[in-house]
């Protein structure tokens, strides 16, 4: 059985917040994560340590996602790495045909070729895991839902004593 701890995922996106998000979600279930904010950096990472899976954003400065995928395919070893495109441009006129090209080219591996932003943490993690044949235990899954979060916070506030609440508030105020 495959365990997340044995796998290394490379997350490529030019948006730092997205990287933080995806990295945290993956690390929370035990994966090792490398990050890169553009295609050049991504290639550097891959040369140093070949990942088991790559999550790619399409539109980035200095080697867009498309270019990166082409580069990967050119290399014998790298072409075998399964990847997924996580993009906000799936239905965008400009990038649609690039996406179509990738899909049309039978060299991809994996069932779903792209995920459209915004993605939910558990969707992302589940898909990566399915591709890698890793089974996740129930505890590893994290779910986010605005409503549930709101409920949780409300629940916790109700359950907490005023002293702790005050401390939290101070902490938050300080950070602003």
């Amino acid at each position, binding site marked *: 059985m495959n365990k997340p701890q044995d796998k290394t995922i490379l997350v490529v996106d030019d948006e730092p*917040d997205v990287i933080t998000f995806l990295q945290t979600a993956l690390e929370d279930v035990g994966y090792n994560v490398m990050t890169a904010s553009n295609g050049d950096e991504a290639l550097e990472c891959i040369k140093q340590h070949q990942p088991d899976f790559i999550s790619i954003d399409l539109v980035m400065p200095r080697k867009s996602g498309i270019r990166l995928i082409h580069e990967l395919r050119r290399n014998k070893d790298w072409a075998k790495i399964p990847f997924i495109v996580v993009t*906000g441009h799936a239905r965008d006129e400009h990038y649609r045909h690039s996406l179509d090209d990738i899909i049309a080219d039978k060299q991809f591996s994996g069932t779903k070729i792209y995920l459209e932003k915004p993605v939910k943490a558990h969707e992302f993690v589940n898909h990566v895991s399915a591709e890698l044949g890793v089974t996740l235990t129930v505890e590893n899954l*994290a779910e986010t839902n605005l409503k549930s979060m709101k409920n*949780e916070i409300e629940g916790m506030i109700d359950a907490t004593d005023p002293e702790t609440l005050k401390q939290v508030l101070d902490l938050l105020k300080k950070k602003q």
Partner: protein
Amino acid sequence: MLTKADKNWQQWLYTRLFENVPCNISIIDRDFIIVENNRNFLDLFGDGRGKKCYQIYKRRSSPCPECAAMKTFQDGKTRVNEEVGVDRMGRTAYYIVHLSPIYDENGDIPYIVEMSTDISETKRLQREYQVLFERVPCYIAVLNRKLGIVRANEHFRKTFGDAIGKQCYEVYKKKGEKCVSCPAELTFRDGKVHTAYQEGTTADGQKTYYMVTTSPLTRDEDPVTNVIEISLDVTELRQLEAELQQSHLFRQKIIEHSAYGLLAFDTRGALFLINPAAEDLFKIKAEDLIGQLLPASLIPEKFLTALMPEHGTVTLEGELTTQDGEVVPVSIASFGLESEHIHIGRAFFIHDLRARKKLEKDKIDAERLAAVGQTVASLAHGIKNILMGLEGGMYIMSTGLHGGKTERLHQGWEILERNIGKISNLAKNLLNFSKGRKVNPTLIKPHILLRDVFDLFQQAAEQENIILSLESAEDLPAVAFDQEELHTCLVNLVSNAIDACKMSVKTDCTVVLKCYNKDRTVYFEICDQGCGMDYEVKQKVFTNFFTTKGTEGTGLGLLTTRKIVQEHGGTIEFESIPGQGSCFRLVFPEDNLPVPTHDNEPA
């Protein structure tokens, strides 16, 4: 002087006669030696006494073949002959010689008298007429009473074919019978000159047209025995006439149906032609304008003067006023009606620009609408990344709460704050873009606009080790710009240039801010030595929301810049070489700039 009474009077008289008779006389003996010649002979052939006749007459050294004198010596018959000899100057002499034997008492012929008349002059004239007859570039034929051709010149023969002996109607017209109104017949009848216009057929079967003049060949003879026909070929003339008619018709139709207004002026400047399109344009009738100078009420003086150079072509845009006071924007192409040798005057082609101006305005409006429309569609992109950010922030906060990891709370909150900020920015930018602010142009020196932007970015550039340089002349004249909008454009371009430098691997990068004026056009140039743009990027650079700056760029900057440039009647150009840098250029033709709303003193 001897008189009749004198014994030798007769002899004297005969001698005088011998000398004075108007022909050349020589007397030769049986050895062909000239024993006597008269003065006229001497003048023509030189003194021949004692010399051989063939030597004097012809400069020969032996008797002529077929010598007529020899025959006369033998048979005593008189002969007349046309001869060709050489006179004493060496020139060819033509003469008619009359040979008569002189008998002595025994019946022998010791001498022959040769009397010759010089016909050289006649011969020459004859030859000249012959050349004239043959070579003159019209057809000449001589007809007899039966309308048969007895003589025809070279031109005639070449055109109509063999003619001598044939009937004239056979040759001229390839017909079997006489023409109905034959001018030659008339001349035969009344002895007068007649002319007619005829259609004939050449030897090759081509139609040919000619004017024939028939004239009696001999004068005051009754009846006329020969008629000379002289014909002038007018086929080409006819063709030219037909072509001219066609050309004229063509010109008429073109002028009448032209969509452009056409005006033509003579050398004094008075109107001599106005077409229906121009009448419509000015809402005036041709007869009210023809023959006069164009009134200033229709085309303002300054405009008209600019359209009337001494020579050459000029095309200008301006305004004309119709008869009922409406102002129409037009483009007028003025050209001289002249060639090397002819000068007729000048003409205008007037192009009504109302349709084009409306199209231009519609296009700008449509583009803006399209941009706004596209905006809504492309909104998704920016929003999706922001949503991702929110999703991420929430996840991190939630797991932080679950797992009791307080750093996550801070981290998650920061992310949320940041992305919410991005949403409001996005909304603001969109609203600004779609609003279409009203242009407020005032007079300002381009240098000042550029310098302000230069000052703005100096510090930031220094911090990034980017060299900012300003190349603009202070004395460039003030022109009308909406200062706030131009400032936005220049800020956008310089900001892009600086970002390009930041993204480049070079250690020291220069950004040059330039402005200059050339051919009545104001140019702003921002050139950087940054990362440059490859083909893909260049294609999309003006696309909505296209940005290569990741989340730093709103993607609206260049679009807004282009919109502002368009509103000022200008254009935006760029060149870029990947790895070397880019240059963005704003081009503002002075004639297209808006009219300043206040006549401010230039700042």
